[in-house]
């Protein structure tokens, strides 16, 4: 995916915003700084413990805005529906979106719907684009500095495992739910309390390891983390053992990493602990020198290893 970006899209549309390579583009329109982002949601199955594609489509885009330090304001939604989709299913998804938009404090102001032939879409695909009011300060990989402290807002892996639990052929019972949630509240708290946040990234597909790798690459720095500092709840750990998955690579939808200046780390932890969605923040690592964009993790027995960007999904292993 990344190479498609590098080889085709970025060269074709090169400009200062794409070069910043962050979740949202921040631009000036008149006197206002506006953040603008888009994302498309193709999750399967459509419904999973803790949410559905509609909820994801709203919170995911809201979070892309929040990660740039922008207050999410307005969303658009484009639907691609497979012919024959039961109306009742769509109604549930739309209700989810309404609820999610209310929870995130955004309004859905424009949209579009297309119907495609049966077999051409996985029942529902949703694209959402979002506009937000950007912060005065730039928050992006460009601002990451050697010595920055990396804070993770909570435990990892709930979303990915919740999805797996309802996927055909690998199903298992669990009380686990997706951690899908809007992240503007903790971000806003950090900004209000004057925490010097350089960069943030929400963990999505590819998990913590992917988010760290992307920032390392975009910022041109090395990153080192302590694996024991990354919280993993027992059912996620157990599911990962069962399926042969690495929790550091499992998807999330309501967690983020914040790169803050070292002097503000304690303040950041304090602020984050006061918000429900980031109630258990932890310092997990630091930014190393500029140069090779390597992400290294120290294991439980004191052994270091490199966390690569994985392409494709981890295949559940048996043997």
């Amino acid at each position, binding site marked *: 995916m990344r190479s498609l970006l590098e080889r085709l899209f970025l060269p074709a549309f090169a400009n200062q915003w794409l070069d910043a390579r962050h979740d949202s583009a921040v631009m000036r329109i008149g006197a206002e700084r506006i953040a603008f982002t888009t994302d498309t949601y193709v999750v399967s199955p459509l419904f999973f413990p803790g949410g559905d594609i509609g909820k994801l489509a709203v919170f995911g885009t809201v979070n892309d805005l929040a990660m740039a330090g922008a207050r999410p304001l307005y969303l658009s939604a484009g639907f691609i529906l497979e012919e024959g989709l039961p109306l009742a299913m769509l109604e549930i998804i739309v209700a989810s979106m309404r609820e999610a938009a209310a929870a995130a404090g955004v309004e859905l102001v424009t949209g579009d719907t297309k119907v495609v032939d049966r077999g051409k879409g996985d029942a529902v695909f949703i694209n959402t684009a979002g506009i937000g009011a950007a912060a005065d300060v730039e928050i992006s990989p460009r601002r990451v500095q050697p010595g920055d402290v990396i804070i993770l807002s909570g435990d990892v892996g709930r979303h990915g495992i919740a999805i797996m639990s309802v996927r055909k*052929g690998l199903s298992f019972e669990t009380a686990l739910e997706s951690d899908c949630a809007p992240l503007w509240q903790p971000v806003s708290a950090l900004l209000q309390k004057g925490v010097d946040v350089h960069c943030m990234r929400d963990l999505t597909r590819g998990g913590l390891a992917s988010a760290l790798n992307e920032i390392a690459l975009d910022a041109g720095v090395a990153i080192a983390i302590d694996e024991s500092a990354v919280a993993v709840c027992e059912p996620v750990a157990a599911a990962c053992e069962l399926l042969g998955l690495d929790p550091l690579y499992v998807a999330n939808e309501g967690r983020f990493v914040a790169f803050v200046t070292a002097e503000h780390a304690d303040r950041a932890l304090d602020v984050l602990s006061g918000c429900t969605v980031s109630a258990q923040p932890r310092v997990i690592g630091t930014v*190393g020198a500029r140069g*090779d964009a390597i992400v*290294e993790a120290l294991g*439980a*027995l004191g052994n270091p*290893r490199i966390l690569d960007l994985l392409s494709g999904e981890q295949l559940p*292993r048996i*043997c």
Partner: protein
Amino acid sequence: MKYVDEYREARAARRFARAIARVTTRPWQIMEVCGGQTHAIVRFGIDQMLPREITLIHGPGCPVCVTPLETVDKAIAIAARAGVIFCSFGDMLRVPGSERDLLGVKAGGGDVRVIYSPLDALALAEANPDREVVFFAVGFETTAPANAMAVYEARRRGLRNFLVLVSQVIVPPAIAAILSGPDSRVNGLLAAGHVCTIMGMDEYVPIAERYGVPIVVTGFEPVDVLQGVYMCVRQLEQGSARVENQYSRSARTDGNREARRIIGEVFEVVPRKWRGIGEIDSSGLGLRAEYADFDAELRFGVGTLSAEESAECLSGLILQGLKKPPECPAFGTRCTPERPLGATMVSSEGACAAYFRYRRTVMASGRAGALKTSVV
């Protein structure tokens, strides 16, 4: 998780490492047979906790890695056929065949499904009577009873659309082949705990005697591997060559009687080719004649497919413990998990994949240097 966490606990691991250091007076080379043990060793840095005198050699215990290239090609040929639902454990999907892998077949429209248990394939056969459901029965003795049970049940239920492509191998003949090799430097062996949970420990007694090698049946967590190494070194220092059991919470001397029974009912011992090693007599399991109706090779006529290995791939030497992955010129450059030359780089139990994932390190954090592969 109970019975996992306590065997990964750092303090207990370090205590065993110190115990090993206390009894070691000479250099010893110990081979761990099972890919799961290799994975744990590389992932948790167990070899790095041992005294310098102890070298761990990685053995051939990765059934995915030793599945011959032509068998992978047969699987691909079958999976690409219309009407077939091809079921496999996840590990096999990215193993390179001569031209593509099973994931490529799936991308091209083939119905390839990852399953967790052979019983899932059986259920698919019952639910899809108009399709042929083919299960890729790969594994060592640990998986053999499950695979056998699926075939046994298929016959008992009168299913005509359930077939298996068998790639079962058994461990003791491979161990003997490796120990008798002229270049073998193996002094002691950690046998595979789950293989022995099924088969028991008797088969290893003549091997220990003939080659004068202590064999310790060992589990898969750091504390297990370290205790296994300790027991092995203690024997080596005493000059003994017995079979001992570290994994006694699961493996018993006689193994699992019901499991052995179903293996004997459905399978018979046959010669098998091990990818990278060659054919080893009596080292595999094949379907008995009474179960020939379930043999996918016969049904689809793919029995005579043959293939040539990549000349560059060293996985054979790696599986025999004669080379370590970083010693391969292609390691990490022309051969990576994304573009593997051989199965040892694809399978998560393969030594090359384990080294690629866990063993490349940089200098102390804060000073990013050039990527170093640590050659242990």
